[in-house]
């Protein structure tokens, strides 16, 4: 199993749309895929028409309830979801109580290795003990980045954190919510991202179709397959398969 974490310190960068659309493409190619909605805002859970309440989410994190009981099938074959739970808002505290707090997430995920080929973590923004757990658990970190100065600054903050804490996870960044009419976007996209970051060629445009995902409550490929954004996510998936997810089955 490969674990891909979609993460950004900053919120509102199209993180959940990325996780949901990539997961859908993965399942379409035949990978048994699980999305874990770690964000208490439960956007991924909402997109898949699943109720965000998880009975015993805390128990699961403490290892007292099998994770498999909580997983829900989505409308798409081969694509399952571990729903968000409001109790995740206290996840930092819970992880802090455990021994080896930075490795707890990995322990929880271990039993899933046989059932899935790909795990996509939709991570909450901000940097915390949860994010540190994610960095340790993930095979790759995918950072959706808006081409603005502020966004690049948070990417640098992330890289500083990773270097300081000696985490060895590879980091992939791609530009999202891109408006090519804006000079600033064009210029920012030329900037260097630092040597530890692999820059992906695909850019996802700013598009109303992405916002419509909230109405349609489905991945773009289902209700707007010919939109530019849908095609960009398809291209992003193909690019990831040959880079970050190389060697994943399928």
């Amino acid at each position, binding site marked *: 199993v490969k674990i891909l974490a979609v993460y950004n310190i900053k919120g509102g960068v199209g993180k959940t749309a990325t996780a949901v659309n990539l997961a859908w493409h993965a399942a379409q190619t*035949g990978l048994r895929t699980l999305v874990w909605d770690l964000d208490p805002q439960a956007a991924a859970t909402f997109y898949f028409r699943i109720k965000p309440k998880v009975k015993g989410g805390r128990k699961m994190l403490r290892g007292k309830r099998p994770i498999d009981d909580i997983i829900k*099938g989505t409308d798409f074959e081969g*694509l399952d979801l571990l729903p968000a739970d409001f109790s995740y808002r206290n996840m930092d505290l819970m992880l802090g109580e455990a021994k080896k707090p930075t490795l707890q997430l990995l322990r929880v995920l271990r039993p899933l290795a046989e059932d899935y080929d790909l795990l996509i973590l939709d991570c909450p923004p901000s940097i915390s003990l949860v994010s540190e757990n994610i960095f340790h658990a993930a095979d790759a970190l995918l950072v959706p980045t808006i081409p603005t100065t502020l966004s690049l600054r948070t990417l640098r903050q992330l890289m500083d954190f990773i270097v300081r804490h000696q985490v060895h996870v590879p980091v992939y960044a791609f530009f999202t919510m891109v408006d090519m009419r804006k000079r600033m976007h064009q210029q920012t996209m030329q900037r260097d991202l630092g040597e530890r970051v692999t820059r992906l060629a695909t850019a996802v445009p700013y598009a109303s179709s992405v916002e419509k995902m909230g109405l349609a*409550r489905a991945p773009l490929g289902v209700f707007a397959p010919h939109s530019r954004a849908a095609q960009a996510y398809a291209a992003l998936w193909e690019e990831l398969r040959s880079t970050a997810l190389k060697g994943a*089955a*399928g």
Partner: protein
Amino acid sequence: MSGPLPALFTADCRSYASYSPPAGTQPADLQRRLNGAWRTRLESPGDVVRCYLDTFDWRIYRSGSLLVAKQSARVLGLIWEDRRHAKPLASCRVETLPRWPEDVPAGVLRDRLSPVVEMRALLPMARVRSRSWVLRVLNEDDKTVARLLLEQSECLTEGKQIIAALTPRLTLIPVKGYNKSAKRLAHFLEQDLALPLAADNRLEEALALQGRQPCDYSSKLDVQLNPEMAADTALRHVLRHLLGTLEANIAGSRDDLDSEFLHDLRVATRRTRSALSQVKDVLPPQVVTDFKQRFGWLGQVTGPTRDLDVFLLDFPRYRQSLPAELQADLDPLLPYLREHQREAQQTLRRQLASPYFHRLLKDWHEFLAQPPAGPDAGPKARVPIREVAGARLWRMYRRVLREGRAITDDSPAEDLHELRKSCKKLRYLLEFFASLYPKAKIKPLIKQLKRLLDNLGDFQDLHIQAERLRVFGEDLQRERGDRLPVVLAIGTLIGDLLRRQMQARAAFASLFAAFDDASQYKICRAMFKRGEAPR
């Protein structure tokens, strides 16, 4: 392309339950009957062809599994199912239908498959084409909470001609995390729509439509005889059974589908000859002489191919038995063996197509179809089979004991060879007439005898193999020149075989002692000599 299969591909095997809706049920009918109670959405139909693969002797089915090759518009996948619980245990994508376990990509499926089928080829046993419709069952958020898969299927010939339609099948596929909905839906289908559960699996249904059933071939000799039957009738019964086995293996031997066809054909031939010569004074003497000779011919012409088959089957083990640095040196032997096997197979093919062979089968059929106990029958033709069998078994049992007891550490190899022949005769007799005696007493005897035979077989065959390998080595040297490494590797192998042969010789005494057991002697005397403990 390798890798996992699309999830929907195996979904029907992960079902909650399968039902038999009335013949001709259309998806729209079903949707109408669900409406009111359930919100549903119909998806566009898809076609799949399932090809059930197994060995000729049904090894996969007998192991409690099914191997299904499922072909959809875009994907060909293999699914290994638990037959009783219709549960997929492993699956993978393939490019073409596999013939050997090695054709399957390395992984869980191949690991399960290889030890079950061993050296046998995978053959298509039945083909079923289905048109399927998925009906998604939705909750108030339009979220899918279960799926219903309606399938209309037909059974196809190998040339994809339609044989007949199977009963339609409605499968309830639960969505993970929505078990309550699946349970309620199952209840609705059973109670409100009164749909009966689907009976057997598709394979059995498809076979039945072709007048077949699973496990309709076995290499085991399983003849039920009545102890009071006239010896002539009983013997013909055994011989007819053997002829059936022999004929079942002709096509596979001719086309060399796998090495077991020829093996089974040869075993049936040997058993036939043994039945002819061992059960004396029952069949007309000129018939016995004539067919013994003609089946002897069949044994001879099939020998060379079988010998080479055995070397090819053993090759991986031979290679493995060599020290690591010599293993690669043995490799030139493999193409040599293959080439010679191919030549032998071509000759065999001609023999199996020859008028002589057809004549043999035709004459043998004719003889077996004649009414028993004709004017030229043997003097014991009308004696009850239990008497004839008992006398013969008792005689052969004592001969084995006599010959075995005479063998010492210094006995020549010929003595062991003679004993082996007697043991084989006894074994065949036991197999022909097993049904006349209590299973609990015959089985341990056969088992003991098998152990002894394995030991004697090792002693003799290892020696013959060593001699054959020597010839191969000389051939390789002469035919291709400059083959010192392979010759040395063969030499090492010969040394190893001869060492094992010596070990087998050393183990003989204790194995024979186990067979020459006082309580077993009493049992045999009671069964064979006195005709006690009949079934």
